[in-house]
């Protein structure tokens, strides 16, 4: 009997806590849902995304005059809605497309969010945005690069990030410039893992290069989380390509760097496709033997006192890690979404959708190095772009291309160790 009483009391207590929570929510807030992998294989990415969004919330909800003209920073809350605060409801997709969709549905129908952002893995962004489309809720994505996401005829899906085709064009243009400067770039080798990321990016690079008359001399696929890559390195060593493009996650990228040193193989140029080569653990463990590796990024810290430098500082304080390209792209998408809600002056999804469609941001209004933000009819940001950066000293990446954004000139050939 006593046990039953305790259970009864606990139930009553939990119900009252829930009711109290609802009462507080009556304050003027704008609720946005964020679905990220907070557990599972990609938990690290999800936790960093959460930190990035919390930093963005701080910037939006509290007055930050030090940001100058950076949108939404100056005053507290969203001016367009009378200073309403932004509240984000986070949900865990557990790395599963089904869970991601369930959580998106819950956020829309139970939490009554006015818009959604997320969900890191392309497959989960696909299923979660499908439910948002059915309910007519805007979904703004900042980081998923699978090409098919914007090919579905959706009206409520907006993607801020550059996609694989944009990166491929960056690599191609960069190589063309280098060729004009006298660097040999005729034979290109691709090394990629067999995940969704590795296969899709490598196939896009291959087709973009082919369209421009540049063939891929060697295409090496390997199983992700490799334990030995000697045969792959030996293949490269035998073919002697002028340029090696690496598409790999962090643990594999580290193994490649170590194996290259062990087998004494230095290609004239290595271009890495973000991910593993941008990971703090890569730079910490093998940065010193990977000097001169080129990489792409849309994030650059910028001069001290600039909004980007302030954001980098706030993010480091929140998460304990340096700001990276992925977290930056997620944060940028969140700013775009909040900016649209601010301009809509309403939490009506249709008005937010209209404001998103009318988005026209200039580079000085962004934290990422895009040429701007403007969505085409498919919802893709047509002004998304990136920089080529280089790990010259083995510790920090510096921007080296295009010339307009370059901090230093590219140093070639690849130095290694």
């Amino acid at each position, binding site marked *: 009997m006593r046990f039953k009483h305790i259970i009864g009391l606990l139930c009553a207590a939990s119900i009252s806590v829930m009711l109290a929570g609802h009462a507080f929510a009556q304050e003027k807030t704008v609720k946005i849902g964020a679905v990220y992998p907070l557990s599972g294989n990609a938990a690290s990415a999800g936790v960093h995304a959460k930190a990035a969004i919390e930093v963005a919330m701080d910037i939006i909800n509290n007055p930050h005059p030090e940001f100058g003209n950076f949108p939404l920073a100056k005053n507290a809350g969203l001016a367009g809605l009378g200073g309403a605060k932004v509240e984000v409801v986070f*949900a865990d997709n557990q790395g599963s*497309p089904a869970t991601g969709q*369930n959580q998106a549905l819950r956020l829309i129908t139970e939490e009554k969010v006015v818009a959604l952002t997320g969900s890191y893995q392309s*497959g989960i962004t*696909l299923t979660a945005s*499908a439910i948002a489309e059915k309910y007519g809720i805007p979904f703004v994505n900042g980081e998923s690069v699978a090409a098919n996401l914007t090919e579905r005829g959706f009206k409520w899906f907006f993607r801020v990030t550059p996609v694989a085709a944009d990166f491929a064009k960056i690599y191609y243009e960069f190589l063309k410039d280098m060729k004009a400067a006298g660097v040999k770039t005729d034979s290109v080798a691709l090394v990629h893992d067999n995940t*969704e990321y590795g296969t899709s990016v490598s196939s896009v690079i291959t087709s973009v290069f082919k369209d421009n008359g540049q063939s891929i001399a060697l295409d090496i696929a390997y199983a992700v989380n490799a334990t030995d890559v000697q045969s792959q390195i030996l293949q490269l060593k035998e073919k002697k390509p002028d340029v090696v493009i690496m598409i790999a996650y962090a643990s594999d990228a580290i193994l490649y760097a170590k194996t290259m040193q062990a087998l004494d193989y230095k290609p004239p140029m290595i271009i890495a496709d973000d991910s593993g080569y941008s990971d703090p653990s890569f730079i910490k463990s093998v940065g010193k033997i990977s000097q001169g590796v080129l990489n792409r990024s849309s994030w650059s810290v910028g001069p001290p006192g600039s909004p980007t430098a302030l954001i980098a500082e706030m993010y480091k304080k929140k998460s304990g890690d340096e700001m990276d390209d992925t977290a930056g792209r997620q944060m940028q998408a969140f700013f775009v979404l909040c900016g649209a809600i601010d301009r809509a002056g309403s939490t009506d999804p249709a008005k937010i959708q209209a404001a998103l469609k009318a988005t026209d941001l200039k580079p000085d209004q962004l934290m990422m190095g895009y040429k701007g933000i403007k969505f085409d009819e498919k919802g893709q940001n047509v002004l998304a772009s990136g920089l080529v950066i280089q790990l010259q000293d083995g510790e920090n990446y510096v921007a080296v291309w295009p010339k307009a954004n370059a901090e230093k000139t590219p140093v070639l050939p690849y130095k290694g160790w």
Partner: protein
Amino acid sequence: MRRLLWLSVVLALVVAYPLLFSTPFQQRLGALVLLYAIAASAWNIVGGYAGQVSVGHVVFFGCGAYAAMGAYAHFALSPLVGIPVGIVISVAISAIIGVPTLRLSGHYFSMATIAVAELVRLIVTNTGYLGAAVGLSGPTVPRNVFDLSFISALPYYYLFLAVLALTLGITWWIANSRMGFYLRAIRDSERAARSLGAPASRTKLYAFMLSAGLTSVAGALYAMMFGFVDPESGLGILISVKMLIMAALGGAGLLFGPLVGAAILVPLEEISNNLLGGKGAGLTFVLYGAIIVLIARFQPGGILMLVKRMIAKRRSKLPSAEARGAAHAP
């Protein structure tokens, strides 16, 4: 008589559930319970009744899911067309892998099925036609009703309920046929069953094939509801484990065991994720795992077994002759 009454009450509740709990999330939760109950019930035929613990059932789940999405992605047909295709392919695969692996017993059979499942996942990951690592997606904006792409979970709920009823009907029919007796005899002691003339190999194979076909239907329904399948969500080993755990939790080898297991685990997983997932501490699976450990420790026969034993105990206390007879029944 009493049993029939209880059954009809439960049935009425199941039919009325989406009307009683009518928010979209609750309806979807109900549909998910039924979906996993279909998969776990299909597994139960070979894993529960025949005692052959397959951890490779995700292969058949994936066959159904890929067939349904493939019908749409490659031929612009309704995913429904994929259901019979998925059944045919998975029954064929089950026959091919069943003949050699069903000769193995105990853990060796389980290990062989894991190996097959991983093999299939790797092959699909590297097959461009099946979307490789990117996966295949279904019709997100429905062209007509046959695309089975609805906003509400209500149509899914009743569709899944019908399929579950069919699955349970087939299971019941098998369990009470000659084959069912063979299967239980094989589970208790295959050698004894063989010595009494039960065609063990053939019976196990038939059960495996039937189970495979029904699992593929569950896979196809899953893909239609979520509109997407990739190697991890369609062929990941965790799906096999889920089917197994649900059946074991409810009561493997009992008709309603998998349904009870799904009705406990699916809400547990979803609701704990709703409450704890957003914190980013990964508590959901800690809780989920703890409950599984507790049940495995204290009630390995499954929850339905516990209920049955309690009913039997209560009846044995009553002096009526009928009740005493029931208590002594095996």
